[in-house]
């Protein structure tokens, strides 16, 4: 299976309240083993998935937010966050986990995986995708 496609995951929903964020992350982690190009987009309430300091103690749900920090180890390092969605919710990049990866082409230097994108860039990401998965 030598075909390489661009898999783009659009995450649109808050981390709790529905199962989509968790089951999206499960696809991403499994998919990482297939050595495809992977892009993760966080838009609308999906930006809440990456917020720091999540606690689920009061709602009886599994807190899976720490798993995002492992994405870099799975070579998932193209993370795109919609800046308008952040602004609409009174959030900035500082409110989100600073996801990083180690660049094997640059002596394993630690680099940021996080990219702020506007609506136009978001549209380009979507039109450039080979396989688009919405969650």
């Amino acid at each position, binding site marked *: *299976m030598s*075909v390489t496609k661009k*898999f783009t995951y659009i995450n649109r929903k808050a981390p709790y309240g529905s*199962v989509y964020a968790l*089951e999206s992350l499960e*696809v991403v982690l*499994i*998919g990482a083993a*297939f050595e495809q190009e992977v892009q993760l987009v966080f838009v609308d309430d999906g930006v809440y998935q990456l917020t720091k300091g999540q606690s689920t103690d009061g709602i009886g749900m599994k807190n899976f937010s720490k798993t995002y920090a492992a994405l870099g180890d799975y070579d998932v390092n193209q993370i795109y966050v919609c800046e308008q969605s952040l602004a609409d919710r009174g959030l900035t990049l500082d409110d989100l986990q600073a996801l990083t990866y180690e660049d094997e082409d640059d002596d394993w230097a630690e680099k940021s995986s996080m990219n702020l994108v506007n609506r136009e860039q978001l549209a380009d990401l979507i039109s450039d995708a080979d396989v688009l*998965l919405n969650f």
Partner: protein
Amino acid sequence: MKFAIQINEGPFTHQAADTAYQFTKAALENGHEIFRVFFYHDGVNNGTMYGVPPQDDRNVQALWSDLAEKHDLDLVVCVAAAQRRGIMDEDEAKRHGKGASNIAPKFRISGLGQLIEAGIQAERLMVFGD
């Protein structure tokens, strides 16, 4: 064209599984290939054989099973999503100490890798349901 189908909603509450079925049937009738149908999220609930809708209504699971029988379709239910929602084949039921399996004919349980592979192999991945 070679299609792969992903279904994210269960039967009856939403029309997504019906629409996916109609699309798949039409695609096959028009000479297209369906590489795989992958059931995810609540979509795994399409794969239980214990649904008994009224006789004057359609049986979504039976429609899929019959279509798969006729066209040798690969109907795959995501194992992780299925375990959460109680969809099991005999092996799974035994492994988890459950009394009986409920997977419908022509459906099989497998991993998320099957969805990724479908995305790679098919020319278009069609997603039905939220």
